């Protein structure tokens, strides 16, 4: 990491950030989730997903630890609220990882059929719009009968 930093600090910083998992959904990184807004040799700007998401403080601390460990002690972390984060900021790779993990990714605009991440059926129903974390709703599949989480469109 330190060697990478010496070669290209921006690429090195991105590599470090890509290694920081989301604390609630560890299969995706903070970069996959789209909460890293900008990176410069002086500062990393991040944005919270949900207003009250308790992971926000943990994420900042995890990024700090990862940057420190990779030798980027001088890089500041700043938080911005504007423009607000939406699920459109989640990368395609991130959506694929969510699905493989068993969480239906947020639906593209205009799409209404929620696909069961277990069996792929679209015969699915919402159980509750609120789930185990602010970003997820509880759904169930009428075909394989399994419950699953849907990452809410936001």
């Amino acid at each position: 990491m330190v060697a990478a930093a010496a070669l290209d600090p921006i690429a090195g910083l991105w590599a470090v950030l890509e290694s920081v998992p989301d604390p609630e959904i560890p299969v995706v990184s903070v970069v996959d989730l789209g909460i890293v807004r900008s990176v410069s040799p002086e500062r990393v700007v991040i944005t919270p997903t949900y207003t009250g998401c308790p992971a926000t403080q943990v994420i900042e601390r995890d990024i700090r630890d990862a940057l420190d460990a990779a030798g980027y002690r001088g890089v500041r972390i700043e938080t911005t609220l504007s423009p607000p984060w939406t699920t459109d900021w989640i990368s395609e790779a991130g959506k694929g990882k969510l699905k493989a993990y068993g969480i239906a990714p947020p639906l593209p605009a205009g799409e209404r059929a929620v696909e069961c991440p277990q069996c792929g059926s679209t015969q699915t129903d919402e159980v509750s719009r609120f789930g185990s974390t602010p970003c997820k709703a509880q759904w169930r599949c009428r075909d394989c009968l399994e419950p699953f989480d849907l990452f809410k469109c936001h």
Partner: protein
Amino acid sequence: AQDQALFDHVLRLGDDSLILGQRLGEWCGHAPSVEVDLSLANMALDLIGQATHFLNHAGDIEGHGRDGDALAFHRDVLDFRNCLLVEQPNADFAQTMARQLLFSTWQKMLFDHLIGSSDETIAAVAAKAVKEVTYHQELAAEWVIRLGDGTEESRRRMADGLDWMWRFIPELFEMDEIAVEAARQGVGVDVTVFRADYDARIRAVLAEATLEAPADQRPILGGRRGHHSEHLGHLLAPMQYVPRTYPDAKW
């Protein structure tokens, strides 16, 4: 002073969210089903997130070194500026949903307007939170309809809950000198501009719930100036106990 009106305005926004968030948190582990329990806890989390942003901002405006935690945990009841609606007791689930419908419908309309606030932080928090508040409003409306148009008992409880909360609506639309000044500066809004929309929206939900709107009662005001019901002190005591007993505690 200009900053005083801004400070008071942001404090009101933050206290509304904080107190309702704390109230909803009281349901944690006690709700009628696990799904409802999660819903109420999630709404509480959203509201406390709003409160954190607003109260930290209020502390910055004030400039005396108080942050959001200091404002939440180290103020006495008379210094809180929330509306009286949010401090009303949960009572039963129907009364909780009545309060949520009346508040979230108002807060959604308020935030839609505050997105245009000339204060960048207020505008950013409103823009961020408005989608979450839309969920709160929809959840409350669904339950008011389900309980109102439900069994004899659920209907009676829903009507009673609305009847209790109804008297606190006028305070939501009160334009006192602080609200007028905040609106004049462009940091706040004239809430009376969406009163008709609000009434129409609430009446539409009640119609679907096959409920009559309660008769208008004598309005109860005063929360914005620190005149609270006895319920607020009982809410603050458990909320503030630990930070006041161990002021430097970290976890």
